[in-house]
């Protein structure tokens, strides 16, 4: 089901299909803080954990093994990116461990070998529910953070098209609507993850917020972000400005940009939001979504960037539970907008990864049943969860 057009095909040929890096799965893989040798030793510890905590060095050897994310990185890189169940697991085990898996390894490989002279390539991670797409994306984000890229991480685009309390009419464009709360939260997280860039990048235009406040040309981007955070009313506009500036300046070569959008099918789906007169709102009427769409578009302006997106059925609105293909979830419009892209399928665990996950749980004393150690117990778990990481996690979870 790979829908590659001719243009992307040529790109593919240039990319070197060498080693594959696998990113972590969505299951709260146990956090392994061991510092064992990653050499292939037959002890169970080596099966489930590896000491390489730099994603750049992950290769095929580490496939199926968990690597540790240090706590510092966790705070800076992932203020808002991890799925909630994983966050709970991190808190329980007191360490953050992701499993290195094939799809993520593949994606990292592509990222390492891109030619930045060409415009941005788009990657879409897709797969059935609970197979580990979000954590794969987080693995990629961690890698890029380590490589000192600027990360534009949208944790869940679905959060902006539903359950929004206050919608204001946009100050910039009367037909669009603002979402002040979500925008200000996002700006805060953006600031946490990209502190050092905010002072380096300079704004190239003058922006007038209201009668009293304005941002001069040449002032650092951090100012805009501050403005957005303090003046909540203008937060969405601040976000729009940030996105615009980043698009413009990515080609200069000062920084590499990673646009990671989770739940990209929300940008082209439907919303559950309504105006006061109960008429439904289309996504493009939300300023946030509108700007994001521009970001993800494959214009020839955008260089030195990568756009990694992920489809999600979990938060999606008005889509059947079994839909997981890009065409089903994105719809006509979205598909055309994102086309051409490189799809990466994330599937269930293979037996080795499954073993590794169970080992990890056992090491952390998470599985308390007497039969959990035995062959029979593992077979039962395999059957019941069908090697689906999400299901396995739910099975092993507390009550």
């Amino acid at each position, binding site marked *: 089901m790979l829908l590659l057009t001719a243009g992307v095909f040529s790109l593919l040929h240039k990319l070197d299909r060498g080693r594959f890096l696998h990113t972590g799965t969505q299951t709260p893989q146990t956090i392994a803080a061991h510092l064992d040798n990653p050499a292939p030793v037959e002890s169970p510890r080596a099966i489930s954990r590896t000491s390489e905590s730099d994603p750049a060095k992950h290769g095929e050897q580490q496939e199926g093994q968990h690597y540790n994310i240090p706590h510092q990185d966790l705070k800076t890189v992932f203020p808002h990116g991890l799925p909630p169940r994983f966050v709970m697991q991190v808190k329980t085990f007191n360490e953050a461990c992701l499993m290195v898996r094939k799809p993520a390894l593949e994606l990292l490989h592509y990222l390492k070998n891109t030619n930045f002279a060409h415009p941005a390539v788009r990657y879409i991670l897709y797969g059935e529910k609970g197979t580990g797409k979000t954590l794969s994306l987080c693995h990629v984000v961690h890698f890029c953070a380590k490589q000192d890229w600027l990360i534009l991480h949208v944790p869940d685009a679905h959060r902006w098209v539903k359950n929004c309390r206050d919608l204001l009419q946009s100050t910039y464009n009367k037909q669009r609507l603002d979402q002040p709360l979500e925008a200000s939260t996002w700006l805060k997280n953006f600031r946490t993850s990209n502190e050092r860039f905010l002072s380096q990048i300079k704004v190239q235009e003058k922006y007038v917020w209201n009668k009293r406040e304005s941002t001069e040309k040449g002032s650092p981007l951090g100012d805009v972000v501050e403005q957005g955070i303090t003046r909540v009313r203008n937060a969405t506009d601040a976000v729009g400005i940030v996105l615009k500036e980043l698009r413009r300046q990515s080609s200069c070569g000062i920084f590499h940009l990673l646009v990671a959008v989770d739940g990209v099918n929300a940008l082209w789906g439907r919303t559950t939001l309504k105006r006061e007169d109960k008429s439904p709102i289309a996504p493009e009427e939300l300023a946030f979504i509108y700007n994001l769409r521009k970001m993800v578009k494959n214009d020839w302006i955008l260089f030195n960037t990568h756009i990694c997106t992920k489809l999600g059925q979990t938060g999606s609105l008005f889509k059947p539970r*079994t839909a997981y293909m890009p065409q089903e979830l994105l719809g006509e419009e979205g598909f055309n907008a994102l086309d051409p892209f490189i799809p990466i399928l994330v599937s269930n665990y293979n037996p080795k990864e499954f073993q590794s996950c169970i080992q990890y749980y056992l090491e952390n004393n998470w599985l308390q049943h007497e039969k959990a150690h035995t062959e029979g117990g593992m077979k039962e778990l395999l059957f019941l969860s*069908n090697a689906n990481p999400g299901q396995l996690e739910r099975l092993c979870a507390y009550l």
Partner: protein
Amino acid sequence: MAAPCVFCGPAIASRFFLGGRVTLAQGQGIWKPAAAELQAGTRSQILRLKHLTVVKTKKNVAASRPEKYTVDFIKKQIEEFNIGKRHLANMMGEDPETFTQEDIDRAIVYLFPSGLFEKQARPSMKHPDYIFPKQSAIQWGEDGRPFHFLFYTGKQSYYSLMHEAYGKFLDAEKRQNQLQAKDLQMEKTKTKDPIVSRWLIKEELEGMLAEKLSDRDYTRFIQLVERFSTLQCGAAEEEFLRRFRRSVTIQSKKQLTERLQYDEQGRAFSTSEGKRKSAKAEVVVYEHGNGKIKVNGVDHLLYFPVTQDREQLMFPFHFLDRLGKHDVNCTVSGGGRSAQAGAIRLATARALCSFVTEDEVEWMRQAGLLTTDPRVRERKKPGQEGARRKFTWKKR
């Protein structure tokens, strides 16, 4: 005045009885109202005669004592039944000589189709032995003296049986003592049936004796017969005791095992069906698989998102320790999610019988994997809100 006769009918119709529980004799020919009074009046005088059924002066008076039929009456009923059977065979165009009870039933269902739900309320034609309850015939002679010497105990057949059994028991004991005294004991060869047998239960004994028994009577009888059977006794006594034993059928022999079939690649597979509530499932289990299950073309994880349903699917395999060894392909329809899971479980258990030894089939049967769950949704009754729930009770 004489009550209107409710039971008159033509002679032929008298052979057909509604249900098997009729206790009142109807086939006495044409009943004349005038004769009722005559009968009632002369009852006391004809007491010594073998009299017929109790005369009913009023319509709804319950009989004061149970109806008694004479032996002649029963014989006449049997003759009429046989004649009617031959007539019926002629009507249906079949051979009267070889007309069995099943044929009679089929003919009646064909000639008198009934839409009644209660099976026993439909028309039927059965041998008088089934229709008239087994009662003892009239027990006394013309002079009023009862025939049996134990008549006045009230339960003459029971006490006579006990008397006879005890007599035989004493004889057997005496013989055994004699043999012991002469040191000619024979080894007591216990020839128990290989198939397990049991004593009669109380209802069966009551049926045999045509009398009501109390629990104590039954217990005493069983004690006597048990003691008797421990003694060494000859062939006649064994025969006597065997009358009171019934064999117990072994359930597991009834389980049908499917044959294994082989597909093009030589892989063995077996098919079977299962039902639960209103869900029907048909399952094909392949050998040498890796534990994949496909339901209606979809993976079982997607089809049954609830863990409980997947546990039901897992149960047969887990029980036989064959978790990752078979591939399953099934189609299911009807019912809800839980019913469908139960139906698939039953079907897989039945299909697995053909891959597995007889012992394991017996264990599965005892675990309840091979039994269709008979629970169905109970009907809602009028005057109630649901099957059991009544309407809210209001005091006023």
